[in-house]
């Protein structure tokens, strides 16, 4: 079926809604990578086997990740007319019991995490109903109550492998509105007004980049989605693609229409097989509905997306290396300018945006720039998804308005250190970022404030360290990562990082001298200032911030004869 009119979209939406809220019980098993890692697929398979064998009147679907990774595997049970209930830490052995109870309109209360009476998908509102009052409300769970879900609005609640469910909660209505009733320039204007900044780390205004690409000479252009997420401890993009792939496709479709570009690419790392699988399926489903291809939604606009996979190099997240990799060349950055917007993939003007940047687009079009810019802080609008990991009690995907303090994220949402330990620091921005000590936890998380304390926002990894963490070892870990991921083109990054690592190894093994600390500072400075691309320019940040905030830990490791 090709969707060509509002009526068509509406009929698919209704069908999708009945899939999400059927007349019989529906069970959703969290099967993102995090859920699968702790047995989500076994639960799904066991349930499927039981339901098929007995011919039960139950809808069983795979869902994405609701974000509370610590509580995975999470299973959602929806009894018609009653609150949806999330069950946590479910084991395959629980499958039989969950099904038996669901058939009776009940849930295993001992496994219940929380209940969801209604849910604001932003593009649509779902009311489930009351019931199960003994189970805490979603809003009473500390991990969820401080969050604001915009990007993750559908994650864990809809089936990412079924386009009908995405359309069911209002998906592709933004694309319909854009393609049928908006002027392409108005779309760019709207994104500019929303204040959306690139979520890959640099924070460049997205609308401005779109405008530059549109104005660049040439008729054949590309838009590219950067899904080469590779920071240690960061998996926001993976979750976004695994849990709600159509949100990304819709964002790209709207962007393409705004920029009048007809070819899209998703550059995704090969280490994300499930995301690739779900995106491929999503692309096929979107094409089958005519949401990609020729004359999309009867608007006369043509656009399609292809997937390009990486080959396991962190540096390929850098724009020029990414373009080289897509072209089949070695992923090594080149000099800029020219920027990609001028000379990108195969020499054509290219707009490159991070997964999450694209994911913001549909809601901006649906709700408008003013609605969007009211979220977050001035100059840092909207929400940001973080992966809160490390030695923190509540591990998971956290979405908060920009400008939220680290304290809120780590203590209110994360419940502090794991197992009651003292939190010492948090690393933001992956290997490019730095370690922030507890005393600076009131720092609002936004592009500028994090820069001021010597780190950066990056793509959204937050690695928490507790009292047992050796900060010099942390610096060594990140330098080791950056050094082995360096492309080797320019000398400060290739050789400089190698020597930083050698010196840090020496210090960690207790053989360092006071001179070593001076050399660390000096070399870090040169690597930062003289490297060719962002990888080298930011790689010494973990060393510099740990030296600045945890200098005493270095001192302690210096060999006595070195004093």
């Amino acid at each position: 079926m090709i969707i060509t009119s509002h009526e068509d979209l509406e009929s698919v939406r209704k069908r999708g809604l009945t899939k999400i809220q059927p007349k019989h019980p529906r069970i959703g098993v969290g099967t993102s990578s995090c859920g699968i890692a702790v047995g989500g697929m076994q639960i799904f398979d066991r349930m499927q086997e039981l339901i098929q064998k007995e011919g039960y009147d139950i809808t069983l679907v795979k869902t994405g990740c609701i974000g509370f990774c610590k509580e995975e595997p999470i299973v959602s049970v929806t009894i018609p007319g009653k609150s949806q209930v999330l069950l946590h830490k479910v084991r395959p052995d629980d499958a039989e019991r969950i099904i038996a109870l669901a058939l009776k309109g009940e849930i295993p209360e001992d496994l219940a995490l929380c209940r969801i009476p209604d849910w604001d998908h932003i593009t649509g509102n779902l009311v489930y109903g009351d019931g199960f009052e003994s189970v805490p409300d979603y809003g009473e769970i500390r991990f969820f109550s401080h969050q604001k879900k915009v990007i993750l609005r559908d994650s864990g609640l809809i089936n990412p492998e079924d386009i009908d469910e995405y359309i069911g909660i209002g998906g592709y209505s933004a694309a319909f509105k854009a393609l049928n009733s908006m002027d392409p320039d108005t779309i760019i204007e709207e994104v500019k007004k929303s204040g959306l900044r690139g979520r890959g780390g640099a924070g460049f205004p997205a609308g401005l980049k779109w405008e530059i690409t549109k104005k660049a000479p040439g008729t054949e252009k590309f838009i590219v989605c950067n899904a080469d997420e590779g920071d240690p401890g960061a998996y926001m993009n993976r979750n976004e693609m695994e849990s709600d792939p159509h949100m990304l496709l819709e964002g790209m479709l709207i962007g393409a229409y705004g920029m009048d570009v007809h070819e899209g690419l998703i550059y995704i790392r090969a280490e994300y097989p499930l995301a690739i699988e779900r995106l491929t399926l999503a692309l096929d489903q979107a094409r089958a509905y005519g949401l990609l291809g020729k004359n999309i939604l009867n608007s006369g606009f043509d656009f399609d997306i292809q997937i390009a996979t990486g080959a396991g190099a962190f540096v390929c997240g850098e724009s020029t290396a990414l373009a080289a990799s897509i072209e089949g060349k070695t992923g090594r950055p080149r000099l800029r300018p020219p920027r990609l917007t001028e000379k990108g993939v195969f020499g054509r003007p290219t707009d490159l945006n991070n997964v999450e940047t694209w994911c913001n687009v549909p809601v901006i079009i649906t709700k408008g720039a003013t609605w969007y810019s009211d979220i977050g802080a001035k100059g840092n609008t909207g929400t940001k998804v973080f992966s809160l990991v490390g030695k923190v009690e509540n591990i998971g995907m956290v979405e908060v308005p920009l400008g939220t303090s680290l304290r809120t994220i780590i203590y209110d949402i994360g419940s502090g250190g794991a197992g009651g330990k003292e939190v010492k620091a948090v690393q933001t921005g992956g290997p490019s970022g730095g370690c922030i000590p507890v005393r600076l936890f009131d720092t609002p998380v936004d592009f500028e404030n994090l820069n001021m304390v010597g780190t950066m926002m990056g793509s959204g990894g937050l690695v928490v360290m507790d009292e047992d963490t050796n900060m010099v070892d942390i610096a060594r870990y990140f330098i080791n990562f950056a050094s082995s991921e360096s492309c080797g083109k320019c000398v400060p990054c290739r050789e400089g990082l190698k020597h930083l690592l050698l010196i840090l190894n020496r210090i960690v093994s207790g053989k360092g001298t006071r001179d070593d600390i001076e050399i660390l500072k000096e070399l870090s400075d040169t690597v930062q200032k003289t490297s060719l691309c962002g990888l080298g320019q930011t790689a010494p940040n973990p060393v510099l911030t740990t030296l600045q905030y945890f200098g005493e830990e270095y001192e302690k490791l210096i060999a006595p004869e070195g004093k």
Partner: protein
Amino acid sequence: MSLLGNGKRMVTVTINKNQYLAEEGEIFLLTANRLGIDIPHLCYEKALEPYGACRLCMVDVVTCGKTDMTPACTIRVQNGLEILTDTPQIIKHRNLLFELYLAEAPKSEVIKEMAAKYGVTKTRFLKKIVHDDPLQGKCILCGLCVRVCEEIMGASAISFINRGPYTVINTPFYEHNPDCEGCAACAKVCPTNAIVFEDIGTNRVMQSWSDTTVPLMICPECGKPFAPQRLMEKVLTKPESGLIEEIKDLCPECRRKYFTLREIRKIPTNGGQA
């Protein structure tokens, strides 16, 4: 600003607070070197696009009172360009880069001399020691050989292998590579003379490139080997080679002899002389 006879515009640039006239659009590194302002560099070659990998030619570009460190090989001369080449910051970073080079290519006399010229005679970093290094402990991975082989010769016989600190340059799988034409352009552009090759008997052996062996042409006149066969074949298929039939297989020496003799004996030619 003035207009030259060749249509190129001369513009004013400020280098270290002094004003100079320079050709608009020229690569600043060349401008500076022509004006006698010394900027060290290792990875720039006129025949190739600027690459910006050696980072030695970093200079400060001054815009509205703010400075931005940029490689001089990537800056194009334009009117009002203001550059600082010798600030304490630049000297500090450059000296440290020299230390890194001294550790990376401890056997390179070129690097030692260049570093010494800027006052850097020793390195605080661990020297890289590779046993049986085909590039004699002299390679600084500037990439000129790889680029000239690919972009100018079109052979792509060598490339970077691995990445980061493990990067090396060699033929694929460290095997004899039949794509090599034996032109030795790689050795010619190498700034540290790291590449070794030798003509042994009727073959050219590229010792640095996994002993890739390329047969040499034998001059039918004097019987001496002179140039790599594959390279000659490629040159001779080009219509613009302009060589007449009688001499195209001869070595340069015998070609000269041919012309000298023809002048003396007035041998009539049958080929269309270019």
